[in-house]
């Protein structure tokens, strides 16, 4: 048996699963004592180039409330052509197509290496992907131009048969009709009036006169044709749309001095969602919102149009002084839920120097699996490349996006599922495996994930329900099955099934085993997600206190200081942004977010990771810090001087040139793969941008203890935050004293 390290790695590679514990305590009481719950990170669409999908339907357990998928853990009687469900122990006969089954002729799903398997199934006519651009026109000319170009460019990246739509908004909202020749036609709505979905559909002419009041009936073909006025195949309207985008003007309504432009984001989104709702319910669709500022009028308004009233800050929020916050949040949540119900996701691309109301709007993306990208301007590579990367393709030349996913979790009897944290909404499916004890989004065994990427990772939390003193469960293993149904970007419907099993262990007798099966990284992320989830719903200090109580691990020091839990020095929008990404990225990325990686480049050897500590900041080093959101290259004082002096230009200092180049190359590599594209910062000692680095490192040296530590050992950080040393000391003291 390999080490746990290898086991964990192997499981992650095969199934996309990282569990906090790889041996599960066999009773509820013991599980509770472990503090870190039995839980796992699951990446449903983890890229598996080595896993060819099978072209048939999965075989399901016949028990109505089980319906587990046939998997390698099932007992199979090849003679009787019968298999026993490993979740409910129901004995099922194979379907006729499995008649030829035998020990030597096993279907893929029974082979151990196919604990994760993907089925391609035929469910209804394939529907093309839908991209609906919702574009803010209250932008600076330069920004708008850049955005227009990006949008035009994106048309070439879309699948040719994808349907595109365009909604522009400013003071008013225009829904552009794309099918018309000659004359550009759009439907206009005022930005201040809330409309019901029915009204919107009526006004867009999507409602056919109710002939006989059949409701809920899927749209007939001619109805789709009607809706096609707004959503057209890219290949058909490429030119039209390019021209249309080219002719987009800034919002023409005058903005008086001292006012913000009137931006009707709320209504624009409700129309976008209403449009899709009416035309393509339950079809994969992306609403892509491009906005350059906060919503300033109508429902969903975040701030008034008076410039003298600044947009809400954390301070205002804490003082309950944010007038529009609750109303707006409620509004967008309602929208998000509508979108989620129909399987439509919403991306937010917000580029502005000031806040754009992400705090309020974020739920649209969070609940629907959409992206959030925050930048300073549309005219930056950060936005341009990130946006481009949305349409990146995988090894098969297919888009790295999937739609309308539902994740169902099945557990063996000793386990129940408490909840999930990630870009999902509950489908409120009660089942035998649903725990009453909710963690994250709970009370269900099914979640909807409107949009998925291969990186999308959910945290799932379980509860061990086996009673204390009860024998270790039959078979000695607990099993979990993840069934993810989704629409692949090539419009196929697919089902990915992952079945994992872990051994039960008696905590009393096997505590060391359990300890050794602990996955520190996974646990850190899982707990951090819980923390973030709580931070979203509870007051900040309480969350920190909870965390302190729960954990005494190294990571948590950084987590405490991270923007996921701390709001100091961050705007509400930034917090929202960071949290958004934290709850959806996979383990590696999450870890980077919690504890940024710091590499040091020097003449003394190859680049090496160094402690995220102020002591690592030395004059003759180049530091590369990756915080996931930022990529900082920091030139030490000496290096910076040399660079300024231009030594790298001199032939004899070729090595210096290479030294300078090395972190750039590494950064480039990260930039290439990261989504969203991080903010790239090239700075040096004393540079203003160096703050990005200084704010992250452990303040082992501060202005308070500067002299005690000696000057040459690093750079002092001007902060009152405690250093790790102090933190640890304190922690130790507490651990001892509070054990009572």
């Amino acid at each position, binding site marked *: 048996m390999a080490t746990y390290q290898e086991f964990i790695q192997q499981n992650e590679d095969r199934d996309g699963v990282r569990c906090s514990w790889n041996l599960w305590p066999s009773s509820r009481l013991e599980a509770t004592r472990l503090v870190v719950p039995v839980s796992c990170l699951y990446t449903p669409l983890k890229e598996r180039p080595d896993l060819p999908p099978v072209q048939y339907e999965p075989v399901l357990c016949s028990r109505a409330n089980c319906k587990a998928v046939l998997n390698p853990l099932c007992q199979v009687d090849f003679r009787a052509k019968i298999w026993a469900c490993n979740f409910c122990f129901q004995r099922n006969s194979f379907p006729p197509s499995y008649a030829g089954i035998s020990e030597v002729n096993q279907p893929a799903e029974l082979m151990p290496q196919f604990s994760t398997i993907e089925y391609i199934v035929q469910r209804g006519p394939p529907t093309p992907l839908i991209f609906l651009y919702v574009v803010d026109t209250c932008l600076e000319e330069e920004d708008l131009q850049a955005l227009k170009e990006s949008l035009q460019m994106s048309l070439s990246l879309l699948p040719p048969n994808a349907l595109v739509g365009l909604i522009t908004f400013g003071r008013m909202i225009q829904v552009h009709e794309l099918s018309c020749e000659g004359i550009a036609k759009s439907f206009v709505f005022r930005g201040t*009036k809330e409309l019901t979905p029915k009204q919107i559909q009526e006004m867009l002419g999507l409602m056919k006169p109710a002939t006989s009041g059949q409701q809920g009936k899927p749209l007939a073909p001619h109805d789709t044709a009607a809706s096609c006025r707004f959503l057209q195949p890219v290949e058909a309207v490429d030119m039209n749309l390019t021209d249309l985008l080219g002719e987009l*003007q800034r919002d023409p309504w005058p903005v008086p001095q001292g006012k913000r432009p009137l931006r009707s984001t709320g209504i624009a989104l409700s129309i976008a969602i209403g449009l899709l709702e009416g035309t393509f319910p339950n079809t994969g669709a992306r609403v892509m919102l491009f906005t350059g500022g906060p919503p300033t009028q109508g429902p969903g308004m975040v701030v008034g149009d008076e410039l003298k009233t600044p947009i809400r800050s954390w301070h205002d929020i804490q003082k309950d002084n944010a007038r529009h916050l609750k109303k707006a949040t409620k509004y967008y949540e309602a929208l998000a839920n509508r979108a989620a119900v129909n399987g439509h996701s919403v991306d937010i691309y917000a580029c502005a120097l000031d806040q754009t109301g992400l705090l309020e709007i974020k739920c649209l993306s969070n609940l629907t699996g959409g992206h959030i990208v925050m930048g300073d301007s549309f005219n930056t590579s950060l936005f341009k490349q990130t946006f481009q990367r949305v349409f990146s393709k995988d090894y098969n030349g297919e888009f790295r996006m999937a739609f309308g996913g539902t994740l169902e979790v099945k557990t063996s009897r000793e386990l129940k599922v408490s909840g999930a944290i990630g870009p999902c909404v509950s489908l409120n499916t009660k089942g035998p495996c649903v725990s009453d004890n909710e963690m994250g989004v709970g009370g269900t065994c099914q979640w909807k994930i409107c949009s998925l990427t291969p990186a999308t990772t959910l945290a799932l939390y379980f509860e061990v329900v086996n009673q204390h003193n009860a024998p270790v469960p039959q078979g000695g293993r607990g099993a979990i099955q993840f069934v993810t149904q989704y629409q692949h970007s090539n419009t196929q419907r697919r089902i990915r099934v992952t079945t994992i099993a872990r051994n039960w262990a008696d905590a009393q007798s096997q505590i060391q085993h359990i300890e050794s099966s602990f996955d520190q990284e996974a646990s850190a992320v899982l707990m951090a997600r819980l923390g973030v989830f709580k931070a979203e719903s509870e007051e900040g200090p309480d969350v920190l206190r909870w965390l302190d109580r729960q954990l005494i691990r190294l990571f948590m020091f950084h987590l405490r200081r991270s923007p996921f839990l701390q709001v100091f020095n961050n705007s509400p929008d930034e917090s929202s942004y960071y949290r958004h990404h934290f709850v959806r990225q996979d383990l590696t990325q999450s870890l980077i977010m919690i504890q940024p990686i710091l590499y040091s480049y020097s003449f003394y050897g190859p680049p090496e990771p160094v402690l995220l500590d102020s002591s690592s900041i030395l004059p003759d080093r180049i530091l590369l810090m990756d915080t996931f959101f930022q990529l900082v290259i920091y030139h030490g004082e000496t290096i910076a001087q040399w660079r300024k002096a231009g030594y790298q230009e001199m032939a004899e200092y070729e090595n210096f040139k290479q030294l300078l180049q090395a972190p750039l190359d590494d950064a480039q590599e990260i930039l290439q793969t990261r989504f969203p594209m991080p903010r790239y910062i090239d700075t040096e000692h004393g540079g203003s941008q160096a703050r990005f680095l200084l704010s992250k490192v452990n303040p082992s040296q501060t202005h308070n203890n500067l002299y005690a530590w000696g000057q040459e050992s690093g750079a002092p950080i001007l902060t009152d935050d405690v250093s790790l040393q102090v933190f640890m000391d304190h922690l130790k003291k507490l651990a001892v004293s509070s054990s009572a």
Partner: protein
Amino acid sequence: MCVVGIINYLFIYCWSCKGTRGPPTSGAPPVSGAQNYSQFGQGENQNGPPPMGAPPQRPPVSQPYTPGAVNLPGPQHPYGQRFGAPPVSMQHMTNQMASMQVGSTAPSPAGPGYAPPSVSQAAVSAPYTPAAPPTFPPASTASSQPLPTEALAQAPPHSYYGALPPVQQPFQNAVPTFSSAGPTQPQAPPPVSPQSFPQAPPISQPPFSTAQVHPGPTQSYRGPLPSTQSSFPRPPHPTSQPSAFPAGPPPTSIPSQLPGVMQPQPPVSQPSPYHSGPPTTSTGFPPQVGAPPRPSFPGMQGPPMASQGPPMASQGPPMASQGPPMAQANHILPTQPGMPPGPINASLSGPPPQPGMQGYPPQQNGAFGQVRGPQPGYTGPYPGQPNYGAPPAAPASAPAAPKRLDPDSIPSPIQVIEDDKANKGSEPFTTGVRGQAPPLVTTKFQVKDQGNASPRYIRCTAYNMPCNSDMAKQSQVPLAAVIKPLAPLPPDETPPYLVDHGESGPIRCNRCKAYMCPYMQFIEGGRRFQCGFCNCVTEVPPNYFQHLDHTGKRVDCYDRPELSMGSYDFMTTVDYCKNNKFPQPPAFIFLIDVSYNAVKNGTVGIVCQELKTLLDYLPRENPDVESNIRVGFVTYNKVLHFYNVKASLAQPQMMVVSDVADMFVPLLDGFLVSVSESRVVIESLLDQIPEMFADTRETETVFGPVIQAGLEALKAADCAGKLFVFHSSLPIAEAPGKLKNREDKKLVGTDKEKTLFQPQVSFYNTLAKECVAQGCCVDLFLFPNQYVDVATLGVVPTSTGGSIYKYTYFQAPSDQERFLNDLRRDVQKQVGFDAVMRVRTSTGIRATDFFGAFYMSNTTDVELAGLDCDKTVTVEFRHDDKLSEETGALMQCAVLYTSCSGQRRLRIHNMAVNCCSQLADLYRNCETDTIINFFAKYAYRSVLSSPTKNVRDSLVNQCAQILACYRKNCASPSSAGQLILPECMKLLPVYLNCVLKSDVLQPGADVSLDDRAYLRQLVSTMDVAESHVFFYPHLLPLQKLDVESMALPMAVRDSEERLSRGGVYLLENGLNIFLWVGVSAQQELLQNIFGTPAFSQIDPNMTSLPALDNPFSKRLREIIESVRAQRSRYMKLMVVKQEDKLELIFKHFLVEDKSNSGGASYVDFLCHMHKEIRQLLS
């Protein structure tokens, strides 16, 4: 005031005749001559009841005639004098007389005196100078009196009859003469009447239907007239009737009849009789009149009198026939003849005067005698009667005749119009003299502004206002002015000058804020001026100071339009602008219905196609400069489509607004654009609109949001403007202003009928208010296939100074031309925006009521979002104090508006009228057309709040009061059986009847509610000319057309009797043109017009005449074009073949006839009116 008498005509009914008619309808007239009585005792009874005084009337009737006759002569003379020209139009006469009187009281008796001025030319000069008249009178009286008698004696019996007939026939034109003649005849007849009548009736009947009506009377008449009549009718018949009569003569004669009626009055008008008579008249009239006349004119008068009804008619006709042609001649002649030339008169109108004269004198104390001028005419008419009878006789003489008053004997509009043309058409009308009635709207004349506004701008009902409210109340004559502030002027008249008073703005009275005008009296050497309206004294600003000359006038008086003209414009300052900001140039927004109906009937394509060229003709002030009006486009069905047509776009952009519940404008930039800059984009748009909606299946429309959209667009652009809405159906789509079909014909005639005229929802009233506040004028073009609720849809247009055009069952091939011409004119016409009109008046009267398409938020300011050159506002005045005869009554109409170039301007119209303390003066200087305009608007508004029946009744009642007051206070004594009408109002009954039986007030079963609402709103903005022709259509006999001459054939009266089966007639009422073709029209005529000789081959569906290369066709098409050019709306041509189905529609416009809807015929109504009057008098 002797003059009064002159003004009036005596109208005498032949009650006896009526008796025969029996028909209660005629009711009024029922009481016929004694003879009738005896003959048709029963019939009389029927009629009798209503008339009450029937028996007594008869006798009087006959008598009145004579007086009437006398009167007539009187008027004529004056006429002749004043205008010198032969045109003897009674009105003129009266007017002149009036003025004359004013000048000197003596004139009245002079009236007759005028007559003497037998020398018409001389007379002409006289009228001009007020002073002259007085002199004349005396002289004339002296001479005239004797003359008349002589003349009468000489001519009446013999020469007259004998001669007249022929004369009459020839002179149809001599309408004027008719009137005059009428009177004379009456006069003459009275004496003779009783006996002679009996005989006549038979004769008359056979000859003509009209005659039949009069039978009773005619008979009696004929008794006296027998010879004449017989001779007349017969001779004429054979010759004249067939050819001339049918078309020309009859009609003319009819008109003449009217005059005839008037004539009766003339007697009244004959001042002399009046003065002397009044007291006596009232009581003794009947007897007296009867007696005197008879004796004096046994032969002549007697008959006419008796027959009055008939005789009148008969006279009228003859008169007419004579008149028209004669008119001028007559007048001249009359005067002359009346005076000296017995023989000449005899042949022409001359003779009549004589008789008339004679008759009168005796009756009216001799004063009448003077009036002879007219008399001749009268006599003429008489003879004419026979003619009349003859022509009509052919078609329907028999049936009609027995019942009716002879239509030829009652006042003829045609006669009056022709008289006026003849009398006033030649000389320019100068506005310098206060209280001078202008020529009729039907007369072509030139105006010279000498201090009062041109009648093209302002027409008053009375040019002699009563000094106090008691008089006004007593007379019941409405005091109103019909103001058309931006009226277009003919090319030979100078448009108002633009006056700039500099930075401080126009100079105004400190107290009442009246603008500087000729009525401001400069005092203290020119340092101050006293306001003519409120008498407040105001400092003259230094920069405006000017010395006064010895008469107290400013030296620069004639250099400054505001001191010497009646109409001028002021430049204004920023103080006169909304929000103290100079206005932006206005905008035109075209809102086009693109629902299924609109697309199907072709309007979408037509509008779009037309706009492409029309946009080059937006109104501009300087023809060399591009119009700076911006344009915008919207299409709609149940949603709205706005178009961005910014010049920089390659293609227009359409923006759909479906949120009709809460309208807004989706774009700012690019919606309103300059035509020249965005031409390419606009053309592309207009090309595409019809294509885009070609396959639409949307049938529902909205309407309220459409106007809101335009309004919001103007608000957003911060400018005033005009919306052109092209709409097809009832707006039933869910939206503000949604309507339901509420057409319920069962309500017609009930007390709830008024609700049909009221808007269905109040939404549009509110909307209209908002539109007015923004200066948003709405013009509505409707293309309905069914009920669209014009009453409601029209609220906004009619409150914003807009117009409604309605094309029911629009079909592109046949209606396109009409629509396009309307559209072109509507778009191109001069228009002002955001206008406020205020009428200031002398202390003593006050503008109290306003009629037209506008909105009023207070009681004084008329707010018009848009004011175009066709829009008219009728203003009613009431006394709140006394006026002085010295200063007269002044009014100043000031209209502040934004011109189409965006300038803020003031247009000022000043008008001064006289004040009188004698009712007679009031009646002498009225304008019936204007009164009718007022009545119509008043009544049409009243239907909103009262049952139509009440409205009709109150109209009749007021009219009766007016006439009764006249009769009581101004007319010379005569029998109650006489209908005496003021000269100026002799057409009041006929016109009033037209109003009463109009579709709005008395709809036929086939008249839709929409049509009624449409007409109601249409009439509210009509000026006098339009309302005149609308209520009394213009009917031209084309077979009389002289291809060589530029002159039009003389119109004929609107009665089927006047149509000849062999003729072709053109009828127009401002909305439609009909070409009526008689069954037996000459082949050559048909060939010339239609290119086919066969009646049966004429296509009744043609909407334009074939362009044939013959002079007749050319001339006819020219005429049609010129008639169209006169009207503000293009008139579609409909060809009506006699006895075809369409003829029913056509007949609807023959307003002197009884209508299908129950409207009374002219004759019947006159009788009814008479009855009413008598009731009031008794």
